[in-house]
């Protein structure tokens, strides 16, 4: 299957100008098509290499910033395609979930099995300032339909708080791993 990375490489080698969709743009577009999902966008004061090195280590990163995940285990790896199983810390309503994942540089797309919950983590260098990172987080219930509108509204309200907490957790985890700047010498 063609990856987003393959598409970007092909576009870069084309003689005709070919527009591409960077990971944050993919996240924004997908969020629009998923009425139960919410999108949260921030600029992180760290370069993409550091941000993505943290996020891409899913077994370590997700339980660190997501309070609904006590444990994430990768059960299958096939190139950029992964399967993972998560365990919730909650005793009530905290069922294990399985996710199919596409993990590329700057792009992590997680869809639950069965197919009703989605998480997208997308990052790219901030335009004009590569020392910072544009980060887009999309998460929520992936269902649509008129009858589901009340449920989706409730889900979005819950997801907004949850996603804001996730993004704050990512920034806090990156701060915790930052190399301290030595004091200026006299």
């Amino acid at each position, binding site marked *: 299957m063609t990856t987003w990375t393959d598409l970007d490489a092909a576009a870069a080698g084309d003689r005709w100008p070919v527009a591409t969709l960077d990971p944050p743009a993919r996240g924004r*577009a997908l969020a629009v098509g998923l009425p139960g999902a919410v999108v949260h966008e921030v600029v992180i004061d760290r370069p993409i290499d550091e941000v993505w090195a943290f996020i891409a280590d899913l077994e370590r990163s997700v339980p660190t910033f997501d309070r609904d995940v006590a444990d994430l285990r990768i059960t299958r790896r096939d190139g950029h395609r992964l399967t993972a199983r998560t365990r919730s810390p909650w005793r009530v309503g905290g069922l294990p979930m399985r996710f199919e994942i596409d993990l590329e540089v700057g792009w992590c797309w997680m869809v639950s099995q069965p197919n009703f919950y989605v998480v997208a983590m997308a990052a790219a260098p901030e335009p004009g300032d590569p020392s910072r990172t544009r980060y887009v987080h999309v998460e929520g219930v992936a269902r649509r*339909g008129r009858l589901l509108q009340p449920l989706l509204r409730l889900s979005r309200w819950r997801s907004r708080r949850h996603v804001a907490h996730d993004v704050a957790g990512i920034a806090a985890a990156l701060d915790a791993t930052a190399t301290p700047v030595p004091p200026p010498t006299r």
Partner: protein
Amino acid sequence: MDDATIRRAQRGDPAALEEVLRDLAPYLGRICGAIALQAGDDALQETMVNVARHLGSLREPAALRGWARRIAVREAVRAATHGRDVPVDLAGVDPAGLDPRRVVGDGSTAVEVRAVLESLEPDQRAVLVMRHLDGLDELEMAEALQVARGTVKSRLHRARAAFRERWTA
């Protein structure tokens, strides 16, 4: 892209929606890139947002590419007209037909192609892209641009001539 995947995407299946956007990206990227040039990425993002937002309204999955093309052309021309455009001086151009794929040979570079495209107006770039990279006929182009067939014919004629003039300058 099979009809079943498009139907699933219309019902809000996230995996299918991502597959639809990924499948459309190179096709719509060529349209947005060649028409909007520097603003191509922004045009492609707006196109994808509109595709995702309105996909449910598409009646026939088989019509997906044509439907998405119309959105891409509209967004790309809109993005291009917000940027700097160099008007084409049509005085003295040769009206003979021209195929950019033949003119742009193996020895040409991306920089050269971009420079020539930059010298055309956005709507001229749109007809060139649709005719020669996408193989559309005048009727299909008229539908995508939402203009009369005769308008497309004259735009294509001027665009070909202008392209050749710039390329051989």
